[in-house]
């Protein structure tokens, strides 16, 4: 008996194993690597061991002495000969713009013309930046193996000369405001989706089966259509010379020069994303509403409740799990949306994803991309926990 039970358990575990492996390989492993990248950056520390050791005892207030200059200079030249200085240079450059050419340019000059006398003089002659304390601070900081700098950067913060945390200069503070905007746009999209989806889901759940099937098809066909196709169709519809504006002008509602700016701004992002995400609101609502017996409303009415009263006290509470599931789904998805805002967002409709994409693709600053991603992840988890407290996840997933 016990054996049989064990057997059953083993078999069940085996059945689940492929999924567990799949999730571990395709989801957990990348997630963990990403989170590690946001705090761990070994490249500079591995490449410049001697320089960083020499800099460790340096006070950071006055220019390093000749000994440190020589150690660093020789290490730069050696790295450049192995053609390994470039990755160090780009990393230091992230802390101080211009360091890439300072490092690579000086190394090239020193390599051709190894200093006979003072390395300090030779390096400052090669690039005057070497005469600045901040240059050396940047190198020391870039050499930190475990570092909070990506998170600081993602929160528009930086570290001052003594290592204290300071705000970035005003014209570089972008991430916090973008995160806020992402949050606000996502909340708006969720609210609009809910307003549009609720009556439709009601209709779907309570219409006659044949008509409900038709309506459901109308919801599902766009859902199955490619995201890109739907986004570009919105461009055709909404643009300045597009279908909607043309119609308004032809009907005389608008004068030709009053055409509405419906796209390439935040409005465009919201309209297109609501359309793309609407099914994710409708389907959970629909599946919950189907399980609410119509008799409940009839009973409430027979007890003298007005429609509004019975809806508020009988129907709405029962549909709440669907509302919660749909809202959470739409909100979480819109927080990470990329293609649609990139194409129709113009200037004011961009989300944080545009910055993450830039750091993944262009600057190759995966540490910062990871930190931004981790902050989004944290927000989503927080939100989930709040929802769990308010609605209860078990209520949300089971209707």
């Amino acid at each position, binding site marked *: 008996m016990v054996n049989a039970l064990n057997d059953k358990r083993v078999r*069940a575990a085996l*059945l689940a194993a492929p999924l567990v492996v799949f999730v571990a390989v395709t989801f957990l492993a990348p997630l963990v690597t990403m989170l590690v990248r946001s705090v761990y950056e070994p490249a500079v520390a591995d490449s410049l061991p001697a320089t960083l050791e020499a800099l460790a005892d340096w006070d950071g207030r006055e220019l390093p002495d000749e000994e440190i200059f020589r150690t660093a200079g020789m290490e730069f030249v050696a790295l450049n000969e192995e*053609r*390994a200085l*470039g*990755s160090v*240079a*780009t990393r230091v*450059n*992230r802390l101080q*713009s*211009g*360091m*890439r*050419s300072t490092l690579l340019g000086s190394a090239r000059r020193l390599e051709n013309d190894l200093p006979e006398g003072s390395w300090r003089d030779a390096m400052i002659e090669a690039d005057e930046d070497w005469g600045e304390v901040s240059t050396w601070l940047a190198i020391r900081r870039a050499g930190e193996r475990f570092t909070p700098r990506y998170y600081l950067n993602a929160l528009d913060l930086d570290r001052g000369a003594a290592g204290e945390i300071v705000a970035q200069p*005003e*014209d*570089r*503070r*972008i991430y916090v*405001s*973008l995160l806020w*905007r992402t949050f606000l746009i996502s909340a708006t999209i969720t609210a609009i989706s809910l307003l549009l989806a609720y009556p439709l889901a009601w209709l779907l759940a309570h219409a006659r089966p044949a008509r*409900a*099937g038709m309506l*459901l098809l109308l919801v599902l066909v766009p859902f199955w259509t490619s*995201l890109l196709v739907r986004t570009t169709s919105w461009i055709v519809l909404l*643009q*300045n*010379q*597009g279908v909607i504006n043309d119609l308004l002008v032809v009907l005389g509602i608008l004068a030709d020069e009053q055409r509405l700016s419906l796209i*390439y701004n935040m409005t465009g992002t919201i309209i297109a994303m609501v359309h*793309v995400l609407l099914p*994710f609101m409708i*389907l*959970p609502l*629909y*599946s*919950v509403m*189907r*399980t609410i017996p119509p008799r409940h409303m009839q009973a409430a009415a027979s007890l003298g409740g007005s429609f509004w009263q019975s809806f508020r006290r009988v129907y709405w509470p029962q549909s709440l799990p669907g509302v919660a599931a749909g809202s959470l*789904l739409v909100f979480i*998805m819109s927080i*990470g949306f*990329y293609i649609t805002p*990139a*194409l129709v967002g*113009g*200037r*004011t409709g*961009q989300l944080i994803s545009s*910055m993450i994409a*830039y750091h*993944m*693709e*262009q*600057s*190759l*600053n995966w540490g910062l991309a990871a930190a931004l991603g981790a902050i989004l992840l944290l927000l989503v988890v927080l939100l989930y926990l709040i929802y769990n407290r308010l609605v209860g996840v078990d209520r949300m997933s089971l*209707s």
Partner: protein
Amino acid sequence: MDCEFHLNVIPRGAKRSRGFSRTSRRDSATSRRMTGETVIPRAAKRSRGISVGRLRIRSWARGMLASLLAVASAAAAAQTLTVVSWGGSYGRSVERAWVEPFMAETGIDVRMEDYNGGLAQIRAQVETGNVFWDVVDLTTPDAVGACDEGLLEFITLEELPAAADGSPAAGDFLPGSRSDCSGGGLVSATVVAYNEELFPGAKPARLEDFFDLERFPGRRGMRRVPAANLEFALMADGVPLDEVYRTLDTETGMARAFAKLDTIKEQIVFWEAGAQPPQMLADQEVVMTTAYNGRIFNAQILESQPFTIVWDGQVQETSGPGIVLGTPRRAIARRFIEFVSRPESLAGISKYISYSPTRLSANAMVTTHLETGIEMAPHMPSAERNMRRALNSDWLWWADNGDEMNERFAVWLTR
């Protein structure tokens, strides 16, 4: 990511809806089987037990077969070179001017793939040691970044084929036109173009006109990146070409560039992909736009659109193919780079699209457009009469300042 959610969500919603009765029946059957409550599943279980044994043998045999096939296909794949470029009309030019003649000459099989620029893919392949892109066409700034990061093979000038007259390649390249990891490449330009139909009277003729809302009212298209736009702003503000980057290096110069952009900010429609600006011009969504000259050329020539390029004020960028570090097909990848870097190969692209070679001796070989027979030289960014106000994009400056500029530009966008 959107796709993943599709997969997750449909069954979830479906589970609860009667509309998907087949799914739900299967679902409940599965859950009953799991708990082992009914008799039927037991029979199913027994038969499954047997088939598991068979399955194991079969899957073992299948595994053997699969690995044999893998070995065989790997041997074949070793001779198939994967070349990655941007696709679209440019990708077709690459295929016809480089890939097809290369296959004909060497007998090496080449497979082409498209991408949208950016380095994330290459980095992922190099870091995991699973390189399946061999040669990638890169903009020079991207090539510099990838070269620094150790994602590409180094290519020295000595390895590249000689100029048309037999002199060494070193003196034959436009200065600053390639990274240490690029082969010979092409010059493209970001230019201002307008739709003729929208300017029946005076027509824009200089870069200044792009910023002149009084004489030329209407919306302007602009790529949503700082590169080229900051340069355009300073050039239009009267900064001489050779002082543009020096000016951008100062705080006041930077402020000046953004202030110039401010003057048209409310009228700018930002674009993202190279195909967008000709579309926006055709839809009359904008009256003028910055664009890549090759895209405008195609719209003019192949689609007969009434577009005109304002050559007075252009920012030239270069691109060229590089070899992904660690590719198992390194030797044939090098042969491909050698082939492409020949002056006649570089000039061959101009039969299909208006991008000029980065090699000086190749410029004389530019002839006519294959499809329409028009003379290509006047359409090239490097044609003499188009060069009167051409700025070379300084990738060294952008490598130093790109990240900071991107942040400042993003702040400016939200302001």
